[in-house]
């Protein structure tokens, strides 16, 4: 799985990157534009351009005004999730790590719901910190129970611990939300993630956190490369293994916690994207991380557009679409692994 193309000694990877990267950037731009143009109402070029400049005279232009923040939020959340998935797979050296599968997104959602229900927290900026706290606690917790016993954190143990934890947490979320009529209407938004409610205010709130998280993530790229060699070798090369793990995880948790606080739990983006990027760009995290962020944005925008198109005139939450795209991929990865490695 970790095979690189330059095994033969030829610098194949470099030229690949130079074609794949521009192609991916172009695809992301096209997806952004189509996300603004396509939906319940398809918008012509004239309205599109006018709407982009802030005009809201016709229905089409108003739709554009609503879709621009939505697209931006999808891009931000997608890159946060893709990046955090790539880090989690690197830190745990586990091909099935993903903030959704490990239950971390559900933990973040639970923390927010607890805050709303019991501590009367009503401001979206506090949600973000709560969600990050919840994500962090859940990550530590799931990793701890997943790595008890023989063989450490094997994919099977980690995935089971995550699946069980997320079932437990979504039950708890329901138990807290249900008797409170004032927030019960929002049950769905804590069960399925969506980017439908995007506003500029929300994006402004979450953007600094995402940027800090991404910066921490990028700084740990080199450390992740060393960790990939195995703990002993990494320590031998002078890396502080525990510190590297902790720092990279902090970045990943900030990213997925903040994304969950704004969009609700969205699964599988963090699983699919790093695997695809590894196929295209190799295993060097200095490439893998930024490319995962880009591909995550593209995947989430694509899923959102698909969700708007197939359920016309209403729409499908993006969390549902990513599950349908991602779960078969998850199964494919599972089938590729040797039983011994599970």
């Amino acid at each position: 799985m970790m095979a690189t193309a330059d095994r033969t000694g030829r610098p194949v990877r470099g030229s690949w990157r130079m074609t794949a990267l521009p192609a991916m950037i172009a695809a992301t731009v096209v997806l952004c534009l189509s996300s603004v143009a396509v939906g319940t109402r398809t918008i012509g070029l004239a309205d599109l351009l006018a709407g982009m400049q802030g005009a809201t005279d016709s229905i089409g232009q108003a739709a554009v005004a609503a879709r621009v923040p939505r697209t931006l939020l999808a891009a931000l959340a997608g890159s946060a999730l893709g990046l955090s998935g790539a880090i989690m797979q690197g830190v745990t050296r586990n091909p099935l790590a993903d903030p959704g599968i490990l239950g971390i997104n559900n933990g973040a959602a639970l923390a927010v719901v607890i805050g709303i229900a019991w501590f009367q927290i009503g401001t979206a900026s506090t949600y973000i910190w709560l969600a990050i706290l919840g994500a962090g606690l859940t990550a530590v917790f799931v990793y701890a129970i997943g790595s008890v016993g023989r063989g450490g954190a094997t994919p099977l143990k980690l995935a089971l611990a995550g699946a069980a934890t997320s079932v437990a947490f979504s039950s708890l979320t329901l138990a807290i939300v249900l008797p409170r009529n004032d927030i019960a209407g929002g049950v769905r938004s804590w069960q399925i993630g969506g980017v439908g409610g995007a506003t500029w205010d929300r994006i402004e709130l979450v953007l600094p956190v995402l940027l800090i998280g991404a910066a921490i993530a990028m700084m740990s790229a080199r450390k992740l490369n060393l960790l990939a060699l195995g703990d002993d070798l990494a320590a031998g090369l002078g890396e502080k293994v525990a510190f590297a793990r902790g720092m990279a995880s902090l970045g990943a948790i900030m990213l997925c916690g903040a994304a969950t606080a704004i969009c609700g739990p969205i699964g599988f983006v963090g699983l699919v994207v790093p695997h695809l990027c590894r196929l295209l760009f190799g295993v060097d995290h200095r490439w893998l991380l930024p490319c995962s962020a880009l591909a995550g944005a593209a995947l989430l925008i694509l899923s959102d557009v698909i969700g708007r198109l197939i359920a016309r005139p209403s729409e499908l939450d993006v969390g549902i679409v990513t599950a349908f795209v991602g779960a078969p991929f998850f199964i494919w990865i599972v089938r590729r692994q040797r039983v011994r490695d599970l």
Partner: protein
Amino acid sequence: MTETVTTLSALIRGRRSRATRWRGIVTGLLAVLLAGIALTLMLGQSFTPPDVVARVLMGEQVPGAAFAVGQLRLPRAVVSVLAGLSFGLGGVAFQIMLRNPLASPDIIGVSAGSSAAAIFGIVFLSLDGASLFGLSIASGLAVALLIYGLSFKGGVAGSRLILVGIGISAMINSFIAYSLARAPSWDLQEAMRWLSGSVNGARLEQAGPMILSLIVFGGLVLTRSRALEALRMGEDMAAALGVSVGATRLSVMIGAVGMIAVATATTGPIAFVAFLSGPIAARIVGPNGSLLMPAALIGAGLVLLGDYAGQFLLPGRYPVGVVTGALGAPFLIYLIIRANRTGSAL
């Protein structure tokens, strides 16, 4: 010669005492369950004396109690017990078969498959009755076979099967979410039934299909009891003992899925009951004796108690699935840690 005889008689004595102990445990659990049923019939918003309950059960029209006991409490208790038996037995059968307590049908997506079909049938096809059960069973089986097929790669490894199940279950859960979102009116009560299970609005007519499924599918699982016991020791060992592993797996899967599907189509997937019953039974019974019956009785007790607690013991009223889901969570975590540490089944 005498030595062999004493060894043999010691073996026989050991087996007898284990069998007696097992029977004692099952009788005890049964007694507890019956006491629980009696209590839930007597206690509610108001207390009904036992003699009045008995008269209502005999079919007498007692003013003031006939409605509360006969129309509200009795159907609830009956449906709870039957659903609990189905979940407990179906769950433990899966756990033994796959030799992992976490491989219960509610975690690997089989319950979700039945639940999704039931929702789909109700929301999109307006089905009810036999056709709904049929659809639910068929899709539970289809999901189980799909998981089995997708994890087949020169033999089925338990670990791969569980992981494939987790993936399928994520997909099905989002389908459930989608169906609920498309339902004509977003009815929270109805949605709760399908998200976490509830016996609110239970009716006595619902008992019929579940009794039938317990007889047919439960019988199918119970007849495989010995083979399942052998499977507890591992596939190779079971095969060496003359168990046909493939055939056992198939019939246990059909039986367990059938029971769970019918119960799920009635009450929704009551969270964690299928998952918790087996391990609790294993704690009580120990290594000697079949877990099937004890787990079924424990499942029934869990649903009955969970529903009672959700109605009367907790602040606010919760459907049973929320109670079992929330209270089951700590135990679940304890189990994961324990299972990981020992690396063993049940």
